[in-house]
């Protein structure tokens, strides 16, 4: 499977969902036999993984929303998406 690039359009496949769990008061990414805690940054990224935006556009979005340096955001987002794609929790 290829690594994510700026033109990838990451999306959560069916069977992978982001959920706010009331019992634990945490955001969780649920997948087959997997539960991954999602920190606020991961939630912001994953909410944008709809298959419509490219990874580059997601980074632009976040850089604007958090007024942070684009290159740092790009690095973190690419790493997160690559890691989740490896686990089949994000499709590219």
């Amino acid at each position: 499977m290829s690594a994510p690039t700026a033109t990838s359009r990451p999306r959560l496949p069916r069977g992978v969902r982001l959920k706010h769990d009331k019992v634990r008061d945490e955001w969780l990414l649920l997948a087959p036999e997997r539960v991954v805690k999602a920190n606020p940054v991961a939630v912001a990224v994953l909410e944008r993984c709809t298959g419509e935006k490219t990874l580059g556009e997601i980074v632009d979005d976040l850089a604007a929303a958090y007024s942070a340096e684009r290159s740092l955001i790009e690095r973190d987002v690419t790493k997160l998406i690559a890691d989740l794609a490896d686990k089949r929790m994000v499709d590219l």
Partner: protein
Amino acid sequence: MNAQSQIAPPTGMLAELTHRCPLGCPYCSNPLELERAADELDTQTWKRVFSEAAEAGVLHVHLSGGEPCARRDIVELTAHCAAVGLYTNLITSAVGLTRPLFDALVAAGLDHVQLSIQDAEPASADRIAGYDGAFARKREVAAWTTQAGLPLTVNAVMHRANISRAARMVDMAVELGARRIEVAHTQYYGWAMKNRAALMPTREATEKAVADVEALRRKYQGRIVIDHVVPDYHARFPKACMNGWGRRTLNVTPSGKVLPCHAAETIPGLEFWNVREHSIGAAWYDSPAFNAFRGTAWMKEPCVSCERKEIDFGGCRCQALALTGDARNADPICHLSPHHARVQKIAAEEAPAIAPDYIYRRLKAKA
């Protein structure tokens, strides 16, 4: 022992909706005393149980059995699980699952399908399952699942008859479009314990299978997630059974008993609560069976002074009972157990001997 605040909420619930199953796999994790259809919980009770599970913090619900599709209300139950926010996983043999039923499950909000595959060779697979034509049905259901865009997990239990084809089963899972495979070396409980002499592979075959499967991780990185349940009897350290007793998951049997694991009923003296009288949350936090082996206070040596006691929790209570006669002993898979030599002797003696015939999992004929 623990105050409720110290016990984490459950994350997963295995709902054994029924023990009825068309297959007869000789390693089935169901108990030898299978529960009868007449004793099964009704639809309304299961719905209440699923609602209580969601409220208690359960995230994943595994609709299992037996064959869960043998329940006429499987679509209604799946829809209810989805409605209360549970992640629904159907653990199926594929036999008895028709296309209209499958489509209805997808429409009801099913999240994931876990399909058992007995072997990569059709004739051997059907012989292991004790059901002619099962293999072909499984291929069909795998195709429906991927066409519907649902994630597919293949569950492959490894034992003497198929262990030489472990790597081929991973290849097959990739061909079927599975996103995940569980390569589960047989754990000897229930029917598998009864059939142990027929199932036990040699150490050499086991080591080769483990190495072959591990080697495929790199090849299939990003295509399939490989979860490897390693073989027990040839190990030096025990598994962290259930990730620790009453720490993460619970089972509900067809008649409503709430168990810490599949085999817990084999341990004498434990008091299990039933969903007919208690809520899921009450059974999790307060039932004597769940508190019997929580934490480390119940342990004996060599566990008490062991630095791994919070890693593997002394291994498996049911295995300790089955092989040493005392559920509080260290799991004898552990090389520190005084009973460990016996485990090695069993594995060494049973594996090379001529395999007896399978005793297929069946409901007892009515008396």
